[in-house]
């Protein structure tokens, strides 16, 4: 297989006396869905916040690679990770721009591209053709995503008015509108009913297969994890305890112990 899309090496995140992530190393490949699972408080979201620049890791290296180009994420400012390395993410508690319409949410995601086209607003104020064309293209891209998540008819409604499941899908579409190399999803299936969960599976596999984007997935819903992941990384108490394909991980005694408790009743 080709070189990995993102390589996490010896990542450690310490909050005062609490070791939230302890020397975790793993890799994710382009065009694959890599799930990160683990019991509550295992450090999954902290790991995400390190990758997407919300935390500066205490120790470790995060390398994103595409072709010959590499980005060292731990050295970049928070917004640069989205802007330059193009790592997009969604949030455990949905963070849409609730007062803005669905379409506007998807256009804000294309901000950097449109800013360049609008000549940092100067050409845009003059209303030059290049900008109008770029905006029309951005709206087309947004329309394409709205078709894929089935929200075309709701495009002009405030995003905050949508039902919960639609908001989850919209947040994924918004992340995809940044045209990311790596998409990090934080519990996208939380609170979805079985039908919506199945739709989500379809959406995620289509993102992997059609768009060729590498997906990193935190999830508690094992039906989602086991049916669509290509690789599973298991964390417990901030440490990696297993890493492999779903079938392998499911049989791993350390994983079973972490989820169901050790047979002799001693904490692992």
């Amino acid at each position, binding site marked *: 297989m080709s070189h990995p899309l993102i390589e996490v090496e010896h990542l450690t995140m310490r909050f005062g006396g609490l070791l939230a992530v302890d020397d975790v190393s793993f890799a994710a490949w382009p065009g694959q869905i890599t799930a990160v699972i683990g019991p509550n408080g295992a450090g999954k979201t902290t790991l995400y916040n390190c990758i997407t620049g919300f935390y500066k890791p205490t120790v470790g290296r995060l390398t994103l690679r595409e072709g010959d180009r590499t980005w060292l994420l731990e050295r970049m400012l928070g917004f640069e990770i989205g802007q330059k390395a193009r790592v997009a*993410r969604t949030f455990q508690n949905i963070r849409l721009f609730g007062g*803005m319409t669905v379409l*506007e949410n998807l256009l*804000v995601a294309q901000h950097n591209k449109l800013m360049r086209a609008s000549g*940092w607003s100067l050409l845009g104020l003059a209303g030059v053709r290049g900008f109008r064309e770029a*905006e029309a293209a951005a*709206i087309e891209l947004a329309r394409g995503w709205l078709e894929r998540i089935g929200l075309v008819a709701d495009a002009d409604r405030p995003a905050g008015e949508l039902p919960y499941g639609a908001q989850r899908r919209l947040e994924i579409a918004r992340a995809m509108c940044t045209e990311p190399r790596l998409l990090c999803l934080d519990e996208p299936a939380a609170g979805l009913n079985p039908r919506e969960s199945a739709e989500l599976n379809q959406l995620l596999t289509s993102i992997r297969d059609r768009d060729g984007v590498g997906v990193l997935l935190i999830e508690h819903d094992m039906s989602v994890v086991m049916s669509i992941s290509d690789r599973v990384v298991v964390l417990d108490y901030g440490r990696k305890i297993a890493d492999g394909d779903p079938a392998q991980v499911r049989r791993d005694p350390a994983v079973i112990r972490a989820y169901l408790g050790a047979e002799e009743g001693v904490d692992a």
Partner: protein
Amino acid sequence: MGARLPAILKDAGLTAFVAAALGIFIVGFRTIDIGSTRGLSFDYEFVDLAIAVATVFLGRLGLQLAAAGQRLPAIALGVILFVVGVSPLKMPSTFLHWFVALGGVALILRGMWPWAQAAIGSAGASPRGVALKQAGTKWFGWALLGGAVLMPFSPMADQKTMDLGVLILTYVMLGWGLNIVVGLAGLLDLGYVAFYAVGAYAYALLSTQHGMGFWAVLPVAGMIAALFGVLLGFPVLRLRGDYLAIVTMGFGEIIRLVLLNWVDLTNGPAGIGSIPGPTFFGATFTERAPAGGQTFSEMMGIPFSSNHRLIFLYYLILALALVTHLFTQRMRRLPVGRAWEALREDETACQALGINPTNTKLTAFAVGAMFAGFAGCFFAAKQRFISPESFVFIESAIILAIVVLGGMGSQIGVVLASILLIGMPEWFRDLGNYRMLAFGLAMVLIMVYRPRGLVAHREPSVRLHPADPGGGR
């Protein structure tokens, strides 16, 4: 109904008692100075109190009757109150006349409200009503603009009205400028008047000391103010909400104190006087032309009138305000405008989408400050004299109140709120000492009935389905 009458009477009596208990010390007694040797003495104004308490009793009775479905008795009570209020009956003060009459009007309105509501409801639901409403929202702004353009030619345009018009338009412009920072970008700025001061002093200093004209300084003043906007922006980038408000408030005070104490540059509290007024293609609005110049009346070949200057100032600030509005509307549809709104909604999500929050905030501060600078430049040219006293905190508070009262981010709301907030204290002048009381009451009523501002509707910056103004459904 019969069974409820005692309860209603009891409630009205209780209300009247509360009014009497509150009013006895505020209205019932009055200290009067009876000469330096004997000090203060009491004057009793129990007639005032009795009239007020009776009005409260009847008003409460009417309100309760209306709430119980007895509209006609309520309206009848309102009519009685109104007639008594406007009658030539001798009451101790004009305020009481107003109080009784307005109480009657309120009661009549309350009595008729259910009918009005039903009528509005059915009219709004009918297809013609829907079309009318859409046309109304579409044309309301244009109607306001038309009214503003024609105002100087209407018979009501005396000097007082024109002065008020200029004042209101200045606040409209400032409100629109602050709307960018507070309404769109969601950065609570309590020191906005600082940029207004920077623009005003920029014009005052450049014109009196370097002989620069109004039109040459206007863009410079805007740019200097924008620079100060960025200067303020840098230290406050990481702050949000209340903390941001406190720091911006401090910044406003710093600017005022510097203006007050840097006597060499700003002449301190004495201010800067004899600032030249704005010119119209080089023509001044004075009676006699300066050396080598020309006056407006000479240019037009019409006799001199001091009104010309006022009308010119009116159209000047109208044009400046409209430029602010058009610029903002345009910016809202650009990526940076959407990023401002996104930043207001959720800064964390913005960062995750690769939007640089620093630059986005700084542009909002700079653009907002620039328009305050323009307005300040106009203010200095209009007043011909400025001093730090014009740029106190209460000005920032009024501008912010205009934005909040109008409905955050709403452009037409700013206009309505300016008319109310700046115009109302003028209209209530007849009420004398009770002016601010009436003003405060009006503010409370607006915030109770329209908690999200006068115009809470947000028009999307772009639509996927433009043919359907209903919002995609």
